[in-house]
C-alpha cells in the first residue's frame, strides 16, 4: 500500500452543513416579520414534523428500533404542556422543556419493558404502550378526559405576539433537535449503534454497552417527540386524546423518513419538508391522499431504499454534516 491512509471527518460537503443550518435558522427566524399569521401557523407544524422525523429516524435508522408508538411521547408532551399551563399555572412556553424532560423520564421505565421485544414485536409493543397512555388519559378528568382540554392561559398575550413567540419557540426546538441528533449520531454511542443496526446476529451478541446506547437513543427520541407534541399543543392550543395519541403520527413519521432517506441526518429533514408541502396542497383529498402516501412509501422502500437524499447524494454518500468518519487515501489525519 503506497498511500498512507488517513481518516477525516470533515469532507468538503460536510463543512457546508453547520453554517448552512445557521443561515437557514436565522432566515427562518425572520418569519413573523414577513409571513402572514396563517402561514406561520403552518410553519409551526413543519417544525414539529422535522422534530418527529429526525427523532423517529434516530430510533429506526440509527438505533434499529422500529417504533410504532412514538405517539405516546407526542401525547405525553402535549398533555404535559396543557396541564402545566392550565392547572399548575406555568407559562406555556416555559412548560415546553419541562414536557420534553417528562416524556424522556417516562421513556426510561417503558424502555425496560419494550426492550424485551425485538424487531416487529418491539414495534407493536411500543404501540400497546401508546394505547395504554391514551386509555389512561381518556379517564383523567383533570385534563378533560375523552374530550380533551384547551390552553387558555396564553390568552394574556396579544394574538400576533403569541403566534410569533410560538413560532420562535418551535423553530428553536427544531434546531435543538436537529443539532442534538447530529451530535448524538457522531458520538461514541452513535457509532456503536451504526455498527450493529443491520446485523441482528451481532446485535444479539453485543453486551451492555449497546443496550445502554439504545436506551439513551430511545429516551432522547421520546424527549424529542414530547417536545414536538408540546409544540403542536402550543400551536393549536388544544389537546384531545384521540388525536395526540393517534398512530397516524407514526404513519407520518414513517412516510417522512422513508421519503427523505432512512439512516441519514438530512433525509428526514428533506422528508419533513416534502411531507409538509404535500400536506398543504393535498390533505383535503383525505383518504385518497393517505392511500397515495402509503403506495409511495412502499415503492420507495422497495425501489429507492435510500430515499430522496440517497438519490441526491448519489453513490458517494455525500453528507452535509460531519457524522461519520471516512477513510481517505493519501492523507494523514
Amino acid at each position, binding site marked *: 500500500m503506497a498511500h498512507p491512509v488517513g481518516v477525516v471527518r470533515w469532507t468538503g460537503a460536510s463543512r457546508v452543513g453547520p453554517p448552512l443550518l445557521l443561515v437557514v435558522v436565522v432566515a427562518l427566524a425572520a418569519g413573523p416579520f414577513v409571513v402572514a399569521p396563517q402561514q406561520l401557523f403552518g410553519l409551526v407544524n413543519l417544525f414539529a414534523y422535522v422534530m418527529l422525523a429526525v427523532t423517529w429516524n434516530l430510533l*429506526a435508522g440509527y438505533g*434499529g428500533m*422500529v417504533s*410504532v408508538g412514538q405517539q405516546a411521547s407526542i401525547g405525553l408532551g402535549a398533555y404535559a404542556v396543557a396541564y402545566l399551563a392550565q392547572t399548575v399555572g406555568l407559562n406555556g412556553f416555559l412548560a415546553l422543556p419541562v414536557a420534553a424532560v417528562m416524556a424522556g423520564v417516562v421513556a426510561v421505565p417503558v424502555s425496560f*419493558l419494550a426492550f*424485551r*421485544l*425485538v*424487531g*416487529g*414485536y418491539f*414495534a*407493536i*409493543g411500543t*404501540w*400497546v*404502550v401508546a*394505547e*395504554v397512555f391514551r*386509555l*389512561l388519559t*381518556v*379517564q383523567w378528568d383533570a385534563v378533560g378526559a375523552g374530550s380533551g382540554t384547551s390552553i387558555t392561559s396564553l390568552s394574556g398575550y396579544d394574538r400576533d405576539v403569541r403566534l410569533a413567540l410560538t413560532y420562535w419557540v418551535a423553530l428553536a426546538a427544531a434546531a435543538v433537535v436537529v443539532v442534538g441528533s447530529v451530535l448524538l449520531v457522531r458520538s461514541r454511542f452513535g457509532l456503536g449503534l451504526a455498527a450493529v*443496526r*443491520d*446485523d*441482528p446476529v451481532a446485535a444479539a451478541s453485543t453486551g451492555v454497552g449497546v443496550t445502554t446506547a439504545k436506551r439513551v437513543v430511545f429516551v432522547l427520541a421520546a424527549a424529542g417527540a414530547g417536545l414536538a407534541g408540546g409544540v403542536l399543543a402550543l400551536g393549536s392550543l388544544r389537546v384531545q386524546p384521540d388525536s395526540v395519541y393517534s*398512530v397516524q403520527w*407514526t*404513519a407520518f413519521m*414513517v*412516510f417522512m423518513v*422513508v421519503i427523505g432517506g*432512512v439512516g441519514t441526518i438530512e433525509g428526514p429533514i428533506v422528508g419533513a419538508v416534502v411531507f409538509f408541502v404535500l400536506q398543504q396542497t393535498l390533505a383535503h383529498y383525505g*383518504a*385518497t391522499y*393517505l*392511500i397515495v*402516501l*402509503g*403506495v409511495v*412509501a*412502499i415503492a420507495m*422502500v*422497495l425501489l429507492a*431504499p435510500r430515499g430522496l437524499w440517497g438519490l441526491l447524494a448519489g453513490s458517494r454518500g455525500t453528507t452535509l454534516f460531519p457524522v461519520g468518519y471516512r477513510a481517505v487515501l493519501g492523507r494523514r489525519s
Partner: protein
Amino acid sequence: MDLTNAVLQGVLLGGLYAIFATGLSLVFGVMRIVNLAHGDFATLAAFVALVLVTGVGLPVWATLLVVVPVLALLGYAVQRLLLQRALSPSPLPVLLVTFALSIVIQNGLLEVFSSDQNRLRLGRLDTASLHVGAFALGVYPLLVFVVAVLILAGLALFLSRTRTGRAMRATSDDREAAQLAGVDHRHVYGVATALAFATVAVAGVLSGAQTSFTPSSGPSLLIFAFEVVIIGGLGNLWGSLAGGIVLGVAQNVGAWVDPAQQVLAGHLVFLLVLALRPQGLFGRAVPA
C-alpha cells in the same frame, strides 16, 4: 352479568383471539417477520363478507367459502410480490412496507365504505344461547371456539404430517439447508403467508359477526393478536389458545369491573406478563 359468566365469555372470546394470533405467529415462525397489516387484512375480509351478505345475499357461513380462498391467494401474492422483495437481515423494510400497506387498506376501505359501524348479521344465531345450570352461553361464541380449536388442530396436523408442513418447519429452522434439501423457500414463504391470511379471513369474518367493525378496526385486532402471541409464548401453537383465553378473560373481567376498562385490562395483563415472564406463560425459558 356476574363474574363467573364474564370469565366463561372471556374463555370463549379467547378462541377467536387465538385464530388471530395463529397467523401472526406462523408468519413470524417461518420468516421471522411481523406483518403490521395483519389486522387490516382481517377487516378487509369482514368487509368482503359484508358485501357478499348484503349485495349477493349469501349467509355469513357461506361467505367463508369465498373470502378464505381469496385472502389465501392474496396472501401468497403479497408475500411473493411485496414482502419477498423487502426481506433483509434488518426488520426495517418489511415493517415499513406492511405499515404502509396497513394505511393503504384502512383508507381504501374508508373510501368505499365510510367510517360507519358494520356488523355481519347471523339471524337467530345472534341471540341463541345454551343454558348450562345457572350459566347462559351464546351458541355462536361457543361455535367460534370450536372452530378455533379445529383450526389449531388442523394447522398442527398440517405442520407435522404433510410434505409442505415439514418443509415449512425445516425452512424455519435453517432456510439455506432447506434450499439444499430441494425446498423452494420462496414458495414455502408464500404458502405460509397464504395460510396466515386464510386464518385471518376466518377470524375477520367470525369476529365481524360477533362485534361491530369499521375500516380502522385493524390495528386493535393486530394488537390483540400480538398480545396473545406474547402471553402464550412465541412459536407455541397451543400457547396461542391459552394466550387467547388469558386475554379474553382479562378483557371480560375488566369490562365486568367497568365497561370502559375492557381493552385497558387486556393491555395491563399483557404488560404484566411482559414484565414478569417475557418468554410467555407457556413458552420455553430460553427463546429458540
